[in-house]
């Protein structure tokens, strides 16, 4: 038996209250990723047949390392938001949706930190 009016019920459930934040973060990271990914593609093309020392030196170069760190942050943030939307759209079993959301969030942070740590290690090694 429900004692609350439909309106009060809806208010109680509320929205995620993060709609604009999500939307805005997705756009900001998207804008950032346009030049970042063009730079990345161009760089990778230049490194296709490079040996270990060349690749290592390229990542260790401070500007490259810095831009790579920003790219890693933006890419994982953007991908996390995108995967979240996919889960929201297609997974309709609530507990599964929640589990996947948690998984995507944790995996994004772990992978992002791992990538960033690798860059920092390479940059500080030599």
């Amino acid at each position, binding site marked *: 038996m429900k004692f609350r009016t439909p309106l009060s019920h809806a208010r109680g459930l509320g929205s995620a209250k993060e709609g604009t934040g999500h939307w805005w973060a997705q756009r900001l990271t998207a804008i950032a990723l346009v030049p970042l990914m*063009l730079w990345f593609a161009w760089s990778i093309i*230049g490194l296709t047949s490079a040996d270990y020392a060349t690749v290592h030196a*390229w990542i260790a170069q401070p500007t490259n390392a810095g831009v790579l760190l920003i790219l890693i942050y933006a890419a994982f943030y953007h991908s996390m938001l995108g*995967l979240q939307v996919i889960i929201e759209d297609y997974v309709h079993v609530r507990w599964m949706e929640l589990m996947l959301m948690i998984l995507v969030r944790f995996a994004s942070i772990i*992978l992002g930190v791992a990538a960033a740590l690798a860059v920092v290690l390479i940059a500080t090694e030599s």
Partner: protein
Amino acid sequence: MSSPEASHERPLSPHLQIYRWQITNTLSIVHRLTGFALSAGTLLLVYWLIAVATGPGRFAYAQALITSWPGQLLMLGWTFSLFYHLGNGIRHLSWDAGWGFELKTLRATGWLVVLFSLIMTGVCWWLAGAIPGIAP
């Protein structure tokens, strides 16, 4: 979230069973697919960076994986996905700015994105093969 009885058995937009397949919805689906592919592709980026951080042995192994034919096939897929998602992402951003909603413009920019991603994929692979030693 509505109550279960309200959300139950409600038809889902965009009514795929009666929806006429066209360029706009195809591009929209491909945008999502490429986004998902790129998310999976971040695993390779992480693996590759860790390999470089670990040392020449691991790096050589990673390079061997990437240059194997399944690796190259994945790289080709990711190159296309990157440029498609980038191009169509800019198309999305233009909609956010309120531009390009007319049906004619919508279709034109759609085909432009397809052309852009195919050309960029080709150019990148040509560059990677033709001038392998360009100074980083």
